[in-house]
């Protein structure tokens, strides 16, 4: 695929991604901090639904042999240490690396600072990477997936996993209906009423 085609495909897919992120409200700082404070579960609902959908899609595509899977290598120290740092950053930013751009598009001015901070963080890591990769952060087990450990085909495990996620989501929705989680201005804000911006 040429770079130009890749960019056009990326822009088209990204536009759909951004549209859905905006409609789901998951890009709102109120939703992301609200999830981390366990008072709002919209983030988990969008996230687990996207995981379950992806699992079904890949069970079909991989099961029928159309695509190869592309899992990342299991680097346990890096996954745990990096994951914790990433999580702290997500709470401070009130965004993930992807939803930062949705915030920029929606007009949140602080998201521009998140974006520049993110670029600086990525460059700082790049300079440190030759050293960090020689530490325990570079140690791991290769590309392992759960169904390999269980000795079953991926597609069966993926469908079982998706079914389990659907059960969890149904229970989550019974416990916390999504319409009650949107907040004052579909922004996850439950503070005192304020004049509309």
């Amino acid at each position, binding site marked *: 695929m040429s770079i130009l085609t890749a960019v056009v495909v990326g822009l088209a897919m990204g536009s759909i991604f951004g549209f859905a992120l905006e409609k789901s409200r998951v890009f709102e700082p109120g939703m992301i901090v609200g999830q981390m404070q366990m008072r709002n579960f919209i983030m988990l609902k969008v996230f687990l639904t996207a995981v379950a959908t992806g699992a079904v*899609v890949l069970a079909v595509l991989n099961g029928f042999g159309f695509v190869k899977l592309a899992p990342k290598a299991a680097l346990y120290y890096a996954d745990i240490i990096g994951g914790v740092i990433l999580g702290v950053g997500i709470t401070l930013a009130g965004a993930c690396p992807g939803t930062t751009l949705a915030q920029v598009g929606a007009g949140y001015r602080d998201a521009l600072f998140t974006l520049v901070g993110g670029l600086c963080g990525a460059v700082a890591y790049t300079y440190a990477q030759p050293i960090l990769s020689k530490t325990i952060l570079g140690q791991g087990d290769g590309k392992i997936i759960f*169904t390999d450990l269980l000795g079953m085909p991926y597609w069966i495990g993926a469908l079982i996993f998706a079914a389990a996620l659907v059960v969890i989501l149904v229970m989550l929705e019974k416990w916390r209906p999504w319409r009650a989680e949107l907040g004052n201005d579909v922004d996850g804000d439950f*503070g005192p009423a304020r004049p509309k911006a």
Partner: protein
Amino acid sequence: MLTQKAWSPYFAGIVIGLLQIPAFLMVETALGASSSYVTVGVWLTGFFDPSITNIAYAASHVSAAAKNWWQVALVGGIAVGAFVSMKISAARRPAISPIWARAIGTASPNARYAMAFVGGFVMLFGARIADGCTSGHGISGMAQLSVGSTVAVAAMFAGGIAAAMLLKRI
């Protein structure tokens, strides 16, 4: 439906999950976001420090490979899609979400801008150590039943919840 302010999180989640179809079939990769920060960051840094591409990690992210620039376009497209969705639903956002004044106890925009910069820095530094973010490890890694991605997502929520406990309740 396109002019609604909010969709069901389940419908939106299905739309996002279905994007794995063109990602795997056309680009032969999974959805992800955080690598693009390396691509753009290294490309910009290259104007000041051309030797950055002596680092293999930098060179591989900024090379003319389709996947690199596909992801940059994907992440840029997110801003476009969110902008369009916002406009056609006639929603408007303040400069800063009202939750921040309660979370950090000050309405100072500069305090929030500083926090956002630090948050962004920490977020991407962590994501690059972990080799993925909410998209790459979360949406894509867990859908592929990746052991490492599942560990990374658990750690991400642990770090996020711990940090959120230090903020005031929103």
